């Protein structure tokens, strides 16, 4: 958690975190290996393929090897050591590291190595790969200070450095620190008072126990694990629509609150599904390894992404539990740690046997997922399943089938016929644009290439949006003429309105008639629906009739459309039928005054420049010079097609036609009972589909029946599989037990086997980081050779072994840290101490850190009283500036493309419940250094920027909190400005302000009181920020003035800092 980052890069780059006293023995692990690792291992390390001069400096055998001209290192004699000769070579061209390595050793580093060699060149294997050594707590200068063994290790170090611990922090500060650390929330005033007034010897310990037992504890613990587990509510790649992983998140909270031992916690997340008699909880927990990003970008290659998912699991699992950067061995063997490329893929193999697809997630969770129906949903699901089954059985009974057969053969003997009176044009579209009415007005293609394929009656003609067809001077009628048009249309969808037919004189008057689809709406992913429009125009818009269907027709569905016109010149005389039924229409124009007749061609599509031409299909287009009566329209749309199909017009029946026939038979021919059953079946299926969408799911791990094979991938590329590998763990660590099937369960148990040197260390280090700001190993994500050596290795090892001895009892481990004297110190710092130990690695003072993003907001909500305490559930959408999502989004019916803000209590949920969209994460959280959750993050960096000031000053969340806090101050603290100021200050910081501090706030209150008394309009404006109601009884100017005071207090460094 490096706050002073820029500087540390150039200072810590040359000085170890804790400069050694020049007289003491040099610690190889802490002082020498990091130099060798960072400067030499790249070419003289574990990566065999890229190793130069056959020299290996990461292992003892290599470092002390005999060469033709001497030994690499001669213990006790730096001058004779080849290593020292080369790093200290007078000739720059011969000096190591060479220029191409982009690394240089400082004089100080060279001197350290010299002294290390001269003092005997004591060598150790990399500390993190050897089992933790449990030492007795050391003797210290001041045994009274020591509350538990942690303190002995801390104080021993301070003694060594000649430093003294700081006094204990005052109780208010201490309880605030403890409350944030354990629950992520500030203490209430009552809790502070109780603690301040508690005279018992174990007053503090009682607070620790109270907080560890709070259900807020689980939330706070989950918060840090969500970063590690790269939890999010969206898929992350490309379109980035939603997923539902909150059942996993809620399991996480429960598991912490029930103090699930860490070994069990680990096994469940890695391999819960493989446990004997795995429970639902066991399976939900495996969502840990499904939280990675998932892609369904059109055109992406599935194998590429399936590989990335598994790589992510390897990286996340190795970082989270072992602090290993295994991802570095994906393309070639690790440059610093003894992990070969082959071992990377052996580890990869554990996670490569899940039944996932490379591209998935368009509609939410990607396979495999676990269904989590409510009891009501579960019984309804069973019920529907049963109903569908029994209804289907009844409808498919042999006697029904036979009856249908008989009906079909009877019908086939009677050819289909329609009343041809007044038929002036008929395009069957069965392979050509021929007019079969006998008038020979054949169509022709003006642009593009119409296609003919399966339609409603035999074939239909298809349009791709680039095709334009003319049907000549067809369908001409005048204002006083009767006319009808009947046609099958399949709407192909578009983002704009889309013409279907037009026969007009010119684009200005639009004299003639037009049929088109208006502005579409999205009804599903990349699926649109639009109203049908019909216009008869003489001189648009002054002289025209225009009607719009009330229903929208959906993209990809066949509909039969008929309009009839009685020659009245009135909208009432223009009827629209959809699928044979009269359609209720909106009349948009009803003033047709002049002629309709024109010499234009009837076009399918349109000819205006820039307009989209029709896309979709057309079948069986008919024109009549009379008004078709409703019964005839119905016959044409519903009954005639079946007869036509049965007449053998299109040859052998297609499956689709068979299904249509069957549906028709059951609806119109069979007994009413079967008719009802058929209708019911459709309804059950619809309900079932709807139910399936409503049932909550959560993504989990599983094992494929035929597991995918794993290969070493050359250069890490899915296109270059080379040697086949089976699951296994890196040889440098303890082996898997003999005889155990090497699967995820074996891996999970291996991770928490006490023989694993990493897991316990990494875990206690992360707890330490939560409380002290920095881990004992600062690089919490990397315990490898390139990580930071532990600041207090004895303490780290003691904690790690203690954790195992405590049977991985998380709360017990944390209780020990929280009750230590080290934790309880004041965080005040002197210039001398700041100079000597700017990062507080030695712990001569308590931790002082700006709160994480979530806690900053939660604190404001809590101290104002707005916080909604609900635990778990779906994620929520608090205030966010408009457009943040939309400006980046894809749209087109995918979920979570636009931000719909919550209202009411959901505005005030804890920040961990804010919907996390990876491609546009909550803006104010990113500003306060939250990671984007694309990858596993084991620690957050902390920055201090002007954008943070803008959030705290101007984000409605904070202003609303300030306003509500100010109202409380006015109501609860009386009239005295000093008491009000103190009330606000104490609420936000838990500290009683000094007089001089109160004076600053009173001055601000007075200034603003004058401002808002003069300008009550401004007061009203300010009070309108945020949706929480304003108490009408309060004087608006006074409330506004105190709101600015509360806002200032919420902006104090102290308010957003854990002191």
């Amino acid at each position, binding site marked *: 958690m490096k706050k002073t980052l820029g500087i540390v890069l150039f200072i810590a780059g040359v000085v170890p975190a804790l400069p050694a006293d020049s007289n003491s023995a040099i610690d190889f692990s802490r002082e020498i290996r990091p130099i060798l690792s960072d400067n030499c291992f790249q070419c003289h390390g574990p990566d065999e393929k890229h190793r130069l001069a056959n020299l290996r400096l990461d292992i003892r055998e290599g470092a002390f090897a005999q060469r033709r001209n001497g030994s690499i290192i001669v213990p006790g004699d730096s001058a004779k050591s080849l290593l020292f000769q080369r790093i200290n070579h007078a000739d720059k061209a011969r000096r190591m590291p060479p220029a191409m390595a982009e690394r240089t050793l400082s004089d100080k580093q060279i001197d350290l190595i010299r002294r290390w060699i001269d003092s005997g060149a004591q060598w150790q294997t990399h500390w993190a790969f050897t089992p933790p050594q449990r030492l007795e707590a050391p003797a210290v200068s001041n045994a009274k200070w020591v509350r538990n063994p942690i303190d002995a290790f801390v104080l021993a170090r301070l003694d060594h450095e000649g430093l003294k611990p700081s006094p204990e922090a005052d109780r208010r500060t201490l309880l605030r620190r403890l409350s944030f650390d354990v629950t992520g929330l500030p203490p209430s005033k009552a809790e502070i008072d109780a603690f301040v007034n508690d005279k018992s010897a174990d007053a503090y310990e009682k607070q620790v126990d109270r907080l560890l037992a709070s259900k807020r504890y689980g939330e706070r613990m989950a918060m840090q694990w969500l970063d590690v587990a790269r939890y999010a509510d969206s898929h992350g790649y490309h379109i980035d629509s939603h997923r539902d992983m909150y059942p996993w998140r809620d399991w996480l909270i429960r598991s912490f609150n029930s103090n699930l031992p860490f070994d069990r916690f680990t096994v469940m997340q890695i391999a819960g599904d493989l446990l004997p008699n795995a429970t639902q909880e066991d399976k939900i927990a495996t969502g840990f390894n499904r939280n990675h990003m998932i892609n369904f970008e059109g055109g992406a290659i599935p194998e590429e992404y399936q590989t990335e998912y598994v790589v992510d699991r390897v990286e996340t699992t190795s970082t989270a539990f072992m602090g290993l950067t295994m991802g570095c061995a994906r393309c070639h063997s690790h440059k610093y740690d003894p992990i070969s490329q082959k071992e990377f893929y052996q580890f990869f193999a554990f996670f490569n046997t899940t039944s996932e697809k490379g591209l998935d997630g368009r509609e939410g969770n990607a396979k495999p997922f676990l269904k989590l129906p409510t009891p009501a949903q579960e019984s309804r699901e069973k019920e529907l399943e049963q109903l569908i089954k029994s209804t289907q059985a009844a409808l498919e009974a042999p006697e029904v089938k036979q009856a249908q057969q008989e009906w079909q053969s009877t019908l086939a003997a009677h050819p289909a016929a329609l009343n041809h009176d007044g038929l002036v044009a008929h395009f069957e579209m069965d392979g050509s644009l021929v007019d079969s009415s006998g008038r020979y007005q054949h169509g022709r293609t003006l642009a593009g290439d119409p296609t003919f394929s399966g339609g409603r009656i035999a074939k239909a003609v298809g349009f791709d949006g680039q095709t334009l067809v003319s049907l000549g001077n067809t369908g001409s009628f005048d204002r006083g003429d009767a006319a009808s048009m009947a046609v099958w249309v399949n709407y192909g969808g578009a983002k704009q309105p889309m013409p279907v037919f037009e026969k007009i004189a010119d684009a200005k008057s639009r004299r003639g008639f037009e049929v088109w689809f208006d502005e579409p709406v999205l009804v599903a992913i990349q699926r649109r629906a639009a109203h049908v429009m019909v216009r008869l125009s003489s001189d648009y818009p002054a002289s025209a009739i225009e009607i719009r269907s009330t229903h929208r027709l959906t993209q990809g569905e066949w509909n039969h459309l008929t309009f009839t016109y009685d020659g009245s010149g009135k909208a009432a005389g223009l009827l629209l039928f959809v699928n044979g039924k009269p359609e209720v229409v909106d009349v948009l124009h009803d003033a047709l005054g002049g002629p309709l007749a024109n010499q234009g061609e009837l076009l399918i599509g349109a000819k205006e420049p820039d307009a989209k031409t029709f896309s979709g299909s057309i079948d069986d287009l008919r024109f009549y010079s009379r008004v078709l009566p409703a019964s005839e329209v119905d016959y044409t749309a519903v009954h005639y097609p079946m007869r036509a199909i049965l007449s053998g017009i299109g040859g052998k029946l297609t499956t689709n036609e068979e299904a249509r026939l069957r549906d028709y038979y059951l609806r119109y021919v069979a007994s009413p009972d079967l008719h009802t059953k058929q209708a019911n079946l459709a309804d059950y299926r619809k309900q079932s589909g709807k139910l399936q969408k409503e049932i909550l799911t959560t993504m989990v791990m599983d094992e494929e029946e035929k597991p995918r094979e794993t290969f070493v991938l050359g250069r890490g590329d899915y296109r270059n599989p080379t040697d086949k590998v089976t699951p296994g763990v890196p040889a440098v660590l303890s082996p898997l037990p003999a005889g155990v099937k090497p699967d995820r369960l074996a891996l999970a148990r291996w991770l928490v086997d006490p023989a694993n040197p990493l897991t316990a260390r990494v875990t206690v280090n992360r707890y330490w980081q939560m409380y002290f700001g920095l881990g004992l190993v600062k690089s919490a994500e990397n315990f490898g050779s390139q990580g930071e050596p532990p600041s207090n290795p004895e303490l780290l090892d003691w904690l790690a072994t203690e954790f195992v001895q405590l049977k991985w009892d998380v709360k017990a481990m944390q209780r020990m840290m929280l009750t230590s004297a080290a934790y309880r110190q004041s965080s005040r710092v002197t210039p001398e101490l700041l100079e000597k130990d*700017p990062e507080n690695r030695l712990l001569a003072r308590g931790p002082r850190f700006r709160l994480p993003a979530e806690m900053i907001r939660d604190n404001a909500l809590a101290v104002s009283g707005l916080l909604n305490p609900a635990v778990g559930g779906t994620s929520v959408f608090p205030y966010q500036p408009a457009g943040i999502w939309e400006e980046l989004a894809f749209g087109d019916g995918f979920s979570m493309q636009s931000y719909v803000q919550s209202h009411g209590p959901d505005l005030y949920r804890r920040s961990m419940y804010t919907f996390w969209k990876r491609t546009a994460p909550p803006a104010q959280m990113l500003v306060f250094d939250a990671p984007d959750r694309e990858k596993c993050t084991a620690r957050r960096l902390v920055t201090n920027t002007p954008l943070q000031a803008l959030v705290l000053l101007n984000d409605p969340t904070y202003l609303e909190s300030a306003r509500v806090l100010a109202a409380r101050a006015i109501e609860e603290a009386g009239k005295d400005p000093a008491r009000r100021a103190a009330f606000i200050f104490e609420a936000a910081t838990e500290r009683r302000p000094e007089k001089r501090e109160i004076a600053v706030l009173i001055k601000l209150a007075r200034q603003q009181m004058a401002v808002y008394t003069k300008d009550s309009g401004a007061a009203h404006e300010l009070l309108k920020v945020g949706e929480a109601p304003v108490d009408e009884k309060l004087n608006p100017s006074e409330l506004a003035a105190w709101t600015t005071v509360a806002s200032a207090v919420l902006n104090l460094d102290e308010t957003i800092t854990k002191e």
Partner: protein
Amino acid sequence: MTLEPTRRHFFGRAATGIGVTALASLFERAGLGAMLPGLPHFPPRAKRVIYLHQSGGPSQLDMFDYKPGLRKFQGVDLPGSVRMGQRITGMTSGQSTLPVASPIFEFKQHGQNGAWASELVPHMAKIVDDLTIIKTVNTDAINHDPAITFIQTGSQQPGRPSMGSWVSYGLGSENENMPSFVVLLSQAHAINTDQPLFSRLWSSGFLPSKYQGVRFRSGADPVLYLSDPPGISRSTRRQMLDGIAALDKMRSEEFGDPEIETRIGQYEMAYRMQSSVPDLMDLSKEPDSVFEMYGPESRKPGTYAANCLLARRLAERNVRFVQLYHRGWDQHNDLPRDLALQCRGTDQPTAALITDLKQRGLLDDTLVIWGGEFGRTVYCQGKLSQENYGRDHHGRCFTMWVAGGGMKRGQVIGETDEFGYNIVSDPVSVYDLQATIMHCLGVDHTRLTYKFQGRHFRLTDVHGEVFKKILA
């Protein structure tokens, strides 16, 4: 009390006993434009970058990479000897043929160097002598997400800092009232396309979050939460800030944590940004002649044209890295219509930006980059007709151009084969391009590193060579 944190202010504190480490960290963290030690590695030719990213993949074959020979192959299946088994996206891999679509647009030669440009880009055509057109940029990625992530961060997979963040981290800022990495976004002109963007493209990745790009948006709040809320006047804000500073100062004296002093400085910078950013965004004082140069849309906030004009204003204010994104270049179908719309919306302002920078003497030390995340295929996606066609993604070669700071002018670099499918000479990988951009800024791309997870990461991973041919 008004605090004016200046370099002197912080040095002033040095005398009062804060040690050099704490002082330097204060100095650095206050955002006062500190470069990393050792930077620049050599004298820079460009002080700042304006990167005009055309998101979706503009069709090089219809704009710059003129292939007159394609006419005779119109509709002919792309020969296997050209494709050479190259992987293609799932959108066209199922097509039974890959018919060559010859561009329908007219090409002419322009400028003294005779660079080819199509009728779609008449304004850019007029300034070709100021550009270096590279026809042979290439990427391994074939889909948007990995390709755009790659060209912006040096990795196809998420997690790395964007180029702007690297530059901001290495070179710091030269304007203490402005972020050093500013992002401007504009929406498509095309009708059919709608590629998403991701905030990861301007994310600081594993670098500290203060190096992330700051989006400047059109509308009331150009930077998130920049405006004072309704009912809070400037003077009230000033008085609040004075109160906050006074209290923070007391705490600082009490606790001695230099973070508090830094925070006071950040609040002052926020206050200054509240006037410096609106001042930047306020185009009302620009003369009509400027709007005429950038075209009619430049008066409309949030458009690409307005963003180009803002980019110039940001360059004037010494903002280190200005990143524009224009959406809508993904012409899988209806290319003739939609590409023309995209060009109509962007050609004039793009050319105007170059001319404007040049007129103001800023082009010499401003590097401007134009291009997408990949190009488009010579073969047609969907149905090919005389008037209409679409093109799929093509990474093996595509055209970008660079102009200004450190680049030769009036050059056309690289040759592609007669199908515009493969590179014949002078390949420039995305890594090479990134290395070259860094070079112009005085940064050796192999030496600007950040240690994360034990590795010394850099923008170009372990790849990239400076492409010297285009350097002035």
